[in-house]
């Protein structure tokens, strides 16, 4: 195990997604990076658990869950995040894609949390002018650490592949780890239930990430392929925006980038990262503005 990595324990001693199991099964071997360290994930025919060899020497513990390979570079100090929806039999559990993005993973998490970009970056799908207003919503901290944003409402012309008309969609966002966020979104056919989207962001380095997207969608009339295609189309609209953010790391000093009321969740996220002394992928408070 690499010693003296310099990465804070909250990230070093936690689990991170590094590969899709379907992709690993197809290729047999995937070379990737996590927190700046090169590693190779290999599938041994006799085991369902892949082995993870570090280029710097040694091995790291691995697990398979939700269709992904999870790795911990340090000593695991907690379990992989729990998603009860994934046990529902009437949902598609879809690995919707793994997207490499040349920006800090913290920027990718923040973008996912952001409602006011929907009418512009995802115009015609997740928002459209003139429905640009972000009504006030609630932000709180989660009991186990993290941020929750509730009462989020936003007008969406085509909120999912089965939506046929625009409507105000109810969102709940939860940031459960610095690099993990999930969204519960009212289902267009049965608004009493919600579809779930989770992003497991793999910090490749401080300024590069891979966004792994997990969907738990009610089956409705949907095919798995349609869910996947919709998610990929949406993320491909985000990628060029993310890759044009300067600086690439997320500034935690509130004076570095001016927030407005609609950014209450993003401001809380940055504050929570600061209070937890998360530095990897961030520009800490004390490093100027």
């Amino acid at each position: 195990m690499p010693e003296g990595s310099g990465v804070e324990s909250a990230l070093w001693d936690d689990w991170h997604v590094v590969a899709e199991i379907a992709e690993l099964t197809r290729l047999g071997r995937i070379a990737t990076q996590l927190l700046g360290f090169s590693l190779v994930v290999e599938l041994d025919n006799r085991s369902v658990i892949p082995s993870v060899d570090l280029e710097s020497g040694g091995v790291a513990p691995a697990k398979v869950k939700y269709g992904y390979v999870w790795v911990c570079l340090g000593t695991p100090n907690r379990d992989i995040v729990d998603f009860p929806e994934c046990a529902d039999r009437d949902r598609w559990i879809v690995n919707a894609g793994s997207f490499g993005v040349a920006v800090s993973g913290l920027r990718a998490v923040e973008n996912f949390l952001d409602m006011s970009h929907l009418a512009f970056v995802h115009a015609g799908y997740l928002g459209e002018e003139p429905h640009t207003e972000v009504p006030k919503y609630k932000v709180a901290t989660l009991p186990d650490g993290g941020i929750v944003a509730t009462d989020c409402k936003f007008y969406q012309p085509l909120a999912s592949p089965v939506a046929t008309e625009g409507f105000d969609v109810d969102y709940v966002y939860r940031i459960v780890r610095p690099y993990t966020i999930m969204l519960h979104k009212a289902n267009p056919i049965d608004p009493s239930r919600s579809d779930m989207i989770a992003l497991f962001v793999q910090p490749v380095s401080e300024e590069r990430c891979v966004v792994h997207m997990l969907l738990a969608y009610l089956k409705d009339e949907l095919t798995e392929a349609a869910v996947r295609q919709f998610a990929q189309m949406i993320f491909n609209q985000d990628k060029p925006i993310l890759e044009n953010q300067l600086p690439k790391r997320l500034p935690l000093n509130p004076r570095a980038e001016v927030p407005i009321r609609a950014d209450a969740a993003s401001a809380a996220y940055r504050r929570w990262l600061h209070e937890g002394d998360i530095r990897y992928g961030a520009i800490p408070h004390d490093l100027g503005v």
Partner: protein
Amino acid sequence: MSDAEEAIRLWFPVSRCEEIVPRNVVQTELLGQEAALWRDDLGFVNAWENRCPHRGVRLSIGLNTGSELRCQYHGWWYASITGQCTYIPAHPGQKPPNVIKTKRYGCAEQYGFIWINLGDQPDAAAVPVLQLDSYTTMRSVFTQAPVDLVAQSLIEAHNFEPATSAGNYILETTGPGEKSVLLLQPMNAEQTVIHGLIPSLVRDADRLSVLRQFNGRVSEMRDAIERAAA
């Protein structure tokens, strides 16, 4: 004062005027700082730090509406000339706070080039003065070498000398005959753009061949400088 500290107070050409066309936004870089250049419909050219004050997205991917620049990420509007944010779509009924404005750089049009100045108090009267009755701008040439090396090499090996008393960033050919003027844009510590002009008007019929000849000569010098820098 170091060269870098001094350079930040100087004016540099960063683009030919004709490249900054209406309803467009152009990205450039000077002394390691990215800038977004855009011309409003009345002709005024803005040079702004190339990031939206809100979430840092490059303004050069934004939309030039003719009077405002609109950020691609959240649709915020920034007014020409002042850089003041005039509209935040997430809160359409509220006037944006006065403090939300882009960081503006000094900007001037002179000798067919857009000049910018990164200093806090840019003085438009300090744009270098060249003794020119007329001029024709040439094609700009990108060079993978630091500005000091480019200037030194042009002076020592290619018969150029400083054209003004303000340092080695503007050079002209030595000796008799029609002069060529080269204007250096230090993009960052490793890259330089060589802009050029000749001090006469070129007839339209001759324009392409003059541009090609000039471009050929500067490209040869560039190749020699890059070999020396490697």
